[in-house]
Structure formats: C-alpha cells, structure tokens
C-alpha cells in the first residue's frame, strides 16, 4: 500500500476567530481540515476551563493534512495573526494514503 509524505498542521486558536483562520487555510490552498473542540488549557495568556464561564476563550484545534508548500504558506500567514491573537501552531511529518487528495 502506497503512502506519501505530507505535513500535519495543528493550530489552536480561540473560537471567535475560527472562521477567520479557516479563511486563511482556504486562501493558502488547504483542501481539507477538521476542527476539534477543547475543554481546558493554559498558556501565556492564563488558564481557562470550559464551564467556568469564559465566553470567547474556548479554544479550537484545527487539524489539517497538507503539502509542504501549503504548510509554509499557512505558517507565514499565521505568524502575522499570532502577533495579535492567543494560540499556537505546530507542524510535523506524516504519511498519508491517497496523496493526491492533499
């Protein structure tokens, strides 16, 4: 079975800006992604916990499998974004089936 090398992006941002970041992905040529919920977290901007009434602070994890070039474009765009907004982004190596999908 044939596997292709791709990149995995994991981006954590706050719920209110999710649609904006999704727009970045689309512009950068990401062809597919999945958004996961989260329950709690901690970072430079403090701790939060869902249910503790922190409207607008809930985080979303965006999971996207992409090519190296697309990953670069997304990260470049995000560098600007994270200058203003809380969140983190990480990229790692993966192998996928049906490489032409990404």
């Amino acid at each position, binding site marked *: 079975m044939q596997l292709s090398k791709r990149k995995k992006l994991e981006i954590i941002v706050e719920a*209110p800006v999710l649609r*904006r970041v999704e727009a970045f992905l689309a512009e950068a040529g990401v062809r597919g992604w999945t958004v996961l919920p989260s329950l709690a977290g901690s970072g430079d901007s*403090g701790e939060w916990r869902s*249910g503790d*009434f922190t*409207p*607008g602070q809930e985080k979303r994890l965006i999971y996207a499998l992409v090519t190296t070039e697309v990953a670069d474009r997304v990260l470049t765009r995000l560098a600007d974004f994270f200058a203003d907004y*809380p969140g983190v982004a990480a990229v790692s190596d993966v192998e996928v089936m049906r490489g032409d999908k990404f």
Partner: protein
Amino acid sequence: MVESLQLALTNLLTPAILFFLLGFGAGWFKSDLTVPEGAAKTLALVLMLSIGFKGGVEAARAGLSADFLKAAGVGLTLSFGIPILAFGVLRLISRLDRTTAAATAAHYGSVSIVTFVAGTEFLRVSGVPFGGYMVAVVALMETPAILSALILAGGGAAGRQGLRGELFREVALNGSVVLLIGAFLVGLLSGDAGMSKMEVFVGPVFQGVLVLFLLDMGLVAARRLSAARSLTLPLVAFAILMPLASSVLSLGLSLLLGLSPGNAAVLAILAASASYIAVPAAMRIALPDADPGVYLTLSLAVTFPFNLVFGIPLYTAATAALFG
C-alpha cells in the same frame, strides 16, 4: 426604612437568591457540582426568550407611553457614557494597561440580563409598577458601551486582522440582543392570544429555569473569584462603588426627565449592572490583548453577586426615597 429592610430580607430568602448562594458556596469549597455548558446556554436562551416575550405582551396591553422614549434616551446615554467614567477611574486608581481598562469599562456600560430579571422580580414583589417595554431598553443598552471602549482603547486588533465583520456581527447581531428584541416583537404581535399558550412556560417554568441558572452563576462566580490572581483592593472597590455611582447617575437623569418611579428603578438597576456574556465575547475579537482575568472577575464575581444580594434592594429603596 423598616419596610425596605424587610423587603431586602424577603429578597434574600427567595429560592432564586438562595440557590445562587448555594452555588457560590459549592464553588468556593470546590465541590464538583457543575451545570453542563450546553445546559447553561440553553437556560440563558429560555430566560431571554421569556422576558422578551413577556415584555412584548405587556407592551401590547399597555401601549407605548412617552416614558419609553425617555427611558431609551437615558439608557443609551448611560451605556455610552458610563465606560468613559469607568475608564477614567480605573486608570486613576489601578495600574491596568489602557486596553484592559477600556475592556473593563465596556462591561460596566453594558448590562446584565439576569440582574434585570432578578431586579424586576423584586420590584413586582415590592409592588412597584414599571413598563413592559423596559425589555427593549435592556437590549438598547447592551452594545453602545462596546463602541465607547473601542474608542478609549484607540482601536483594536479586529481592524488590523480583517476581523471587522466578525466584530460587527458580534455587536450588532449579538445573539442575546437579537433574541431579546425578537421575542419582544413576537410578544407584541401575538399579544394575549399568544400569552394564553405560553403563560405556563414563561411563568412558573421560567422560575425553575431562573433558579437553575442562578445556581450555575453562583458556581461560576465563586470559581472565578477563588482563581483570581489579578484582583487588587482598588479593583474590588471599583467593582462595588462603580455600580453605586452608575445608579446615582441614572436616578439623577431619570428625575431630570420626569420618568415614572418604576422605570427609574429599572434603569438604576440596569445602570449598576455589568455585562458578562455579550461584552466579553466581543472583547475577545476586538481587544484580544485585554486581560479577561480582570474584566470577567470584576463583573461576574464581584459586581453581579453584590447587585443581586445588596444592590437591588438598595437601588429600589433609593428610588422610593427620591421619587416617593
């Protein structure tokens, strides 16, 4: 005076207030009691739908009086103006950065719907009549404060990041404003015929929903308070004295314009209340650098309990003294 004290005690022994205190105690001692998030949001929807609808039906019955326009004028003025006062005070007495001070100020210009509900329940028990259209005034007061705060902060990240659309939507199409105004219109249009279908839901069922919601608010307020790191004495003083100042301001304006005592009492309660749903969500988009540890803790964990337990009877008594 004796009567006021007695009413204040009655307020304290209401199931709604007692369940709030229960939640607060449970949260403070770190009980694992929690209301699921989806449930809390749904309870909030039911509250807004019910008070909007009831207000609309009452407005349909009584018609709009000239007092409505006056009350709306006072409300808008306060929502725009209070943030400026609050910002000035905060910069003077605390070391909050400009952005956090502006965001906090926005909360005090806007209003708390649950404080409104508890306040009007108290006025009903106390036999003070007021206009059903005051629900519309609540909706009008929710968002102007956000604009004031943006100006005070010197613009926010939303513009730079192409998030203006999101911010506009958060402000102008904010779910709670839309539901409140919409339910008000539904009540206005469907009138007594609609009320005959809804009266159990917006009446006795509403009482249960309110109690559950206040239980949750108690839990959340206590958790926020016990986790607060950035709470200084001047900030706590601000969170208690600012509502007093706002209510005095509101009563002055109401006297000036000759509002009815009931409407003036409602406005005083609204002026004193601070937002903890609509405004914080808008601030995450508009001013993401502002510290929610400050603004949410102050409005939700200090001002809200203060108003609920002490403030409401106080503002009512003050209105009675001034207008009586």
